[in-house]
């Protein structure tokens, strides 16, 4: 069977499905970081294996990350997207699916306390269909004991030893309880978990969590759900500068410029939840955050000019040709 693969004719065996074309395109393991269109329609990752190809169809395999598919490492794995998304709060499953697809995310957080992993036709079906990695969290836990127990339940339920560790100090601020957090992180690391702790924007606490063996640190920009952006960019920059594990800006993202700022400050990634589901149009906001993250990362790599007090003309007088 002859199809068109990225604009060029390509021969595939009869009965081949879309995943064969993806492999033939030279995309990496599992097609990570690419999007696939069949005759112009995007096909979700989870459907590649079951989508049959017909003679003459056009398959386009696009790198989801522009500019050479730069990846980053978290928990010993390579990731393309620097945007981690939450799954709670969406108005419908359909809206969640469209927004997650638009965000380009590869990792999504799921609250064990609010989602039954065994329930059919629910959140996890959508996540499976999109081929996303599930990062369970311990949302709603107030003590180390509670968080450790919830993490262990999540390990059974989701068959993963990754855990986004949240130990909340009170329900008004939802700030992390530093003492309980460190205690829980130590216990979970000792138990073999890949621990991603939600922490305050405190460089010392971030360092202690890193020393305890956490796989990343996830400082807040401002309180969960506040959309107030990054209130202490100096601390976030210090954390990012000193950390040897990835730094993921967790709470406080309100809009695309916040996402860009986090990456400019040196964070490796962001986590966004209410910024997406709370927007009037969550699908467009998910796209905006994806681009914000990409723009912020590029700007970081590009190296910004230093801030100056006085003007500096972009065209110098010396050495100008005399055109008069």
């Amino acid at each position, binding site marked *: 069977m002859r199809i068109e693969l990225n604009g060029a004719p390509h021969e595939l065996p009869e009965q081949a499905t879309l995943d064969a074309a993806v492999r033939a395109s030279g995309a990496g393991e599992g097609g990570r970081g690419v999007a696939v269109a069949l005759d112009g329609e995007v096909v979700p990752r989870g459907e590649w294996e079951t989508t049959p190809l017909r003679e003459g169809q056009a398959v386009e395999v696009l790198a989801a990350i522009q500019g050479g598919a730069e990846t980053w490492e978290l928990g010993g794995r390579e990731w393309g997207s620097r945007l981690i998304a939450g799954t709670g709060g969406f*108005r*419908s499953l*359909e*809206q969640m699916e469209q927004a997650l697809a638009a965000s380009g995310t590869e990792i999504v957080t799921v609250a064990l306390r609010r989602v*039954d992993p065994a*329930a*059919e*036709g629910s959140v996890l079906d959508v996540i499976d269909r999109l081929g996303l990695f599930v990062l369970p969290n311990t949302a709603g836990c107030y003590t180390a004991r509670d968080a450790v127990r919830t993490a262990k339940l999540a390990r059974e339920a989701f068959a993963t030893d990754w855990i986004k560790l949240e130990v909340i100090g009170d329900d008004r601020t939802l700030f992390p309880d530093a003492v309980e957090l460190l205690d829980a992180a130590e216990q979970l690391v000792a138990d073999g978990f890949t621990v991603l702790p939600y922490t305050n924007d405190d460089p010392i606490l971030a360092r202690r969590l890193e020393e305890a063996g956490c796989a990343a640190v996830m400082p807040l920009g401002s309180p969960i759900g*506040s959309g107030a952006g990054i209130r202490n960019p100096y601390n976030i920059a210090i954390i990012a500068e000193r950390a040897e594990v990835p730094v993921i800006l967790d709470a406080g993202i309100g809009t695309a410029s916040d996402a860009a700022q986090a990456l400019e400050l040196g964070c490796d990634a962001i986590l966004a939840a209410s910024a997406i589901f709370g927007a009037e149009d969550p699908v467009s906001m998910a796209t905006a955050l994806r681009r914000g993250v990409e723009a912020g990362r590029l700007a970081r790599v590009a190296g910004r000019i230093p801030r100056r007090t006085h003007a500096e003309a972009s065209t110098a007088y010396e050495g100008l040709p005399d055109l008069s």
Partner: protein
Amino acid sequence: MPAEARALTEKRGFDAVVVGGGVIGLACAWRLARGGAEVVVLERGEPGGGATRVAAGMLAPVGELTFGEPELLELTLAAARLYPEFVAELEAATGGSAGYERLGALHVALDRDEAAQLRRVHELQRSLELEAAWLPPRRCRELEPGLTPSFHGGVFAAGEAAVDPRALARVLLAACETEGVEVRTGAEAVDGIFEGERLVGIRIAPGSAGPLKRYAEQESAGSFARAGGEEIRAETVVLASGAWSGATEWLPEHARPPVRPVKGQVLELRSRVEEPPARHIVASERVYMVPRPDGRLVVGATVEEMGFDTAVTAGGVHELLREAYRLLPDVAEMELIGAAAGLRPGTPDNLPLVGPGAIDGLVLATGHFRNGILLAPLAAQAVADLLSGDRRSSFVPSKANKGRTPTTEVAR
């Protein structure tokens, strides 16, 4: 009933078998029977014993409005307009009361953050020209003196109403009986009966109970075996089994609608003084309260993706009581008379699944999610129109309905 329809009925059995005796199923059965159809309702437990029993019965399209759901708003507004007549008809037919009251709803912002969010929704309400007004705290407390003294304002939607779903189920059941609908309780559908590709009836579980009350005329027809595993044949099978609609193992997999259970916990409080706890529906971002004429107050509701779990949890009760108390401090003095969890039938896009199913002979009336009580008259009307061959029904089915288009031959 016309002679040719009668002949068909004798050949096929009933005109319609409705699977599910909640408010949706009963409303469909009643509408169909009033149009002259012979209808049987199969209810696994007790009529109105599922989500109907737990629902608060808010008829509140304005307050429930969110961004990005214009189709749902159109449906809920249409249903709210139908309600007074729907209830009046039922009450006239039965002499009972459905507890319908046009209470008005007050949505309160407790702090500055909530006020910003409420104003944002209020802007949307105004842009759609819905009946809603922003009121400063003093005006809110004139309307609702029991409110906490300290808050940031509210939105009053004067047209919002409520019905008592249990009372509604009772009058619907009585109205069904008046119209000759056979309502079978304890009758669990276990198998579809097919003729070729067409669904022509339902087999119920052995040992399923007989009719709750058979209409005299049908009693003499006596065409049904009393033994277990009985077959009930009908021209059309109406699937109205709410949150269980997606788990209908008696349908081929492709014909099962994409419905999932979404758990909700609800509390019932009772006033211990003369003064009613609230005069209107009172709500915040996190809780709503619906006063009943007899002094009860329904507090709802959690939204949980927990499969078919219906446990009432300490955390759920705590959250509802805490938020209720923040709004109406008098709640602390009320008697807590009940806590229950029910399952809403959720669909991928929150829109109901009402219309032809994916196989011949199947009609869907399910997936009403948070709005089952409100949408009942509209769903019943749409199903009745569909079965009588009237395609002008205004109902917009969910995009998730992979069923046949309404031009398919499903008329009797």
